[in-house]
């Protein structure tokens, strides 16, 4: 049957909605309360506690551990400082993205890799001839995301480590009360936030400590729906939703390169070799055919389409993750893969794949919307991602 996370004893008791969903073979809450809205607002106005244990986690150690990762991913790992966390995709030999995740440099020769899909075989396949040890720490390591403007204050109540000096995408070893954890200044919400990595055996104690310390700061357990709204606002893509792993794609057109996913910034062609380098160098030369962009729907257009049906405008308060056509000059040119009404920005936003010629911010496009069973095209335009990028995220 499905697995439960190390926090299940707490999350199950909180999940009054009984709305569970699957994530990497685990059951996790979609929303604890009957609606995800308050959970979302906690991310943006207080602090949300999110169980992200289903992430796959690997410990890579040994003299050649940086070499292995540098061989595997397009970003430069050797240059990462101890305590630095890198977000990166990784590709097959054709430069097509297999997965994306983070690489945390825990020590000179010690890394933690997270991924959306199991990656043991791929790590091992690239480790041939190298002096490394690869351990699957997925089940043994629990993970919590504490995200929102009050995240720092809550966490600081529990630890002596000075969190104000922990920079964006850095990590530190710490003790929460007396429990050893790793705290990284990372997250999937585009807000001020931390992720806490701990032994699965300490999960409930850490959860309880955070809830206790956070209650006065409005800490709110949040499920996947709230997280999904936040990550769309943050312009962050999701495997199996916004792109298909080259490992699973059945046809070429289902695959994407980092450039096509707007992750060109992660590709370091100065590195002498990594999987997919030649293909990506060639693509860098000729330019990517596709782009992954932000779309903002024009309110007046949406209102008019509904008015024609005699209705007030309706917007998706829960995030959707289906493929929705994007039109330009009345032809379908691309497709959106995630979208939601942003309760904070008061805008209907979406993430979409479009050919490069339609990808410049400001380009007018149409997004298909269904109004009273009729398919319509709402005016929209390409906008820069992220949709929401608060100062506090990096500050």
């Amino acid at each position, binding site marked *: 049957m499905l697995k439960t996370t190390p926090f299940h004893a707490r999350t199950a008791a909180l999940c009054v909605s009984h709305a569970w969903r699957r994530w990497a073979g685990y059951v996790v809450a979609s929303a604890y309360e009957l609606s995800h809205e308050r959970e979302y607002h906690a991310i943006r106005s207080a602090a949300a506690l999110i169980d992200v244990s289903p992430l796959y986690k690997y410990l890579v150690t040994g003299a050649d551990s940086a070499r292995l990762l540098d061989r595997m991913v397009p970003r430069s790992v050797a240059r990462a400082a101890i305590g630095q966390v890198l977000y990166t995709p990784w590709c097959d030999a054709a430069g097509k993205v297999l997965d994306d995740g983070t690489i945390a440099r825990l020590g000179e020769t010690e890394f933690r890799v997270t991924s959306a899909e*199991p990656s*043991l075989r791929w790590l091992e396949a690239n480790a041939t001839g190298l002096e490394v040890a690869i351990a699957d720490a997925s089940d043994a390591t629990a993970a919590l995301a504490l995200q929102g403007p009050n995240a720092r204050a809550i966490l600081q109540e529990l630890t002596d480590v000075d969190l104000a000096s922990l920079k964006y995408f850095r990590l530190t070893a710490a003790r929460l009360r007396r429990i050893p954890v790793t705290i990284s200044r990372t997250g999937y919400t585009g807000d001020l936030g931390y992720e806490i990595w701990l032994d699965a055996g300490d999960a409930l104690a850490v959860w309880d400590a955070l809830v206790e310390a956070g209650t006065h700061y409005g800490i709110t357990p949040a499920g996947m729906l709230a997280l999904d709204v936040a990550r769309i606002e943050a312009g962050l893509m999701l495997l199996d939703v916004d792109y298909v792993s080259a490992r699973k794609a059945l046809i070429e057109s289902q695959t994407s390169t980092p450039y096509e996913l707007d992750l060109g910034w992660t590709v370091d062609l100065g590195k002498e070799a990594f999987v997919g380098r030649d293909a990506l160098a060639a693509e860098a030369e000729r330019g990517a055919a596709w782009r992954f962009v932000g779309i903002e729907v024009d309110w007046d257009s949406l209102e008019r389409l509904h008015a024609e049906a005699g209705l007030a405008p309706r917007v998706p308060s829960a995030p959707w993750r289906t493929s929705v056509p994007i039109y330009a000059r009345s032809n379908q040119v691309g497709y959106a893969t995630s979208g939601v009404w942003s309760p904070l920005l008061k805008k209907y936003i979406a993430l979409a794949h479009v050919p490069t010629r339609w990808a410049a911010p400001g380009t007018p496009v149409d997004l298909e919307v269904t109004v009273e069973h009729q398919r319509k095209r709402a005016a929209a335009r390409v906008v820069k991602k992220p949709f929401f990028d608060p100062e506090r995220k990096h500050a």
Partner: protein
Amino acid sequence: MANNTYDAIVIGGGHNGLVCAAYLARAGRRVVVLERRERVGGAAVSEQVFPGFTYSVFSYVVSLLRPEIIRDLELPRHGLHVLPLESTLTPLANGDYLAQWNDHDQNRRELARHSLRDAEAYDEFGRLMHQMARAVKPFLGMAPPDPASLAPRDLAGLARVARHFRGLHRGQFHALHKLLTMSAADYLDEWFESEALKGTKSASGIIGTLLGPRSPGTAYVLLHHYMGELDGVFRAWGFAKGGNGSVSAAIAASARALGAEIRTEAPVARVLVENGRATGVALESGEEIRGTRIVSGLDPRRTFLDLVGACHVPGELVEAVRRFRFRGASAKVNLALGALPDFTCMPGRGPHLRGAISISPSVDYLERAYDEAKYGEFSRRPYMDVVIPSMIDPAMAPPGKHVMSIFAQYAPYRLNGGWTGARREAFGDAVIDTLSEYAPNLKSIILHRQVLTPADIERTVGLAEGNIFQGELSLQQMFSLRPAPAWAKYRTPVDGLFMCGSGTHPGGGVMGAPGRLAALTILGRASG
């Protein structure tokens, strides 16, 4: 046209004969099917051998039945209801098990219990096999072109093959090359490390064939079985409600509705050949029936050597037919049970009893079972594919009671000393003894047991040497070589005589494709 002359006479009411007749009738032809037994279906029959208990006597699952046949013949309207068969449980000697479930997460978790790497490799393997099956599948729907022929239709067919293969990626082409040349065991070794997984996967490479998992060529047969899964969306895979006889019954009902005549207890003694042309058949009763086209659903040996007679067939074809490898390798054991078997590795009633139970703990286990057969003995510890049909369709047995279908291999047709009643029961004992190691209560719940060796299969339904595919699915007798070079397109050297059984392309399994393609050939509509 005289009243007693048919447009087509189909010999043998197996599922392919019925499919062929239905398609011919659908095209307005006057068709009669002549079946020796008292019931149609050939090896796809359901019978109450023991009162109250329905056995799928021989074939027992629907795996490759072509979706176009289901649509064209409107089989659901004529009673076909395919129920899902969703898991495979492989019990292991140490009391553990390997289960393969339909649900992706559940399956991955179970595989990861045995090997994290296998759990990851499983998806990639599945994707590659899906692509390979897609690469090969178009050939299931076409009459195989003769590579040595310059006829326009053959050239067009070969061009289609070439175009199709050019569309493969380099990696896919290499994988196909491996599948066509390697053994199932070697191929699986490139992917997996868990013995139970390799054993169970390799089993589908040996079914119905007197080869072991380490025999070259068996990798391809793995692929043959993946083709059924390609139609996963269509859900053609599973267990037919009422047993496999209801597949035949649905096809027969469709054929009758389309105007075909079906006669049972009408054994054909010989095909009438006049001036090199087949003109009709003579029944064992002496009755003669005339037809413009004679279509044999029987295997090539019985068609050419028994019904037509070697004197009417070119010597080289006679030779080819004599060399065509049958070598029945499998037996069937059907049980009526007073209660459910209790498996040590997963006690009690549960979803595992609604799926297949595979006795295939390792490649070594299967290869050892083959070793005995190679030298003319039956396997004392055979490979088995077990289903409990009454768990899927309760109507198969009285309430609270069950039927169990056991496909067991190896039971070689050419057993040292021959198959006798005593030898048959000794093999039955070996099957029950082996299965009892995993389900200790088995012996105490058996109410009735039916053991069918290849010799019994040959005697009952006529399949030469009891081969369930009308001839091994080995590469040297596939595609343009099935059943013989230059005669792979359902035609024969005898004018007006056609073949439509599993002994023709694309081969066996309750697939129906040979019957359909033969009909299309007769109607002049076959592509390829």
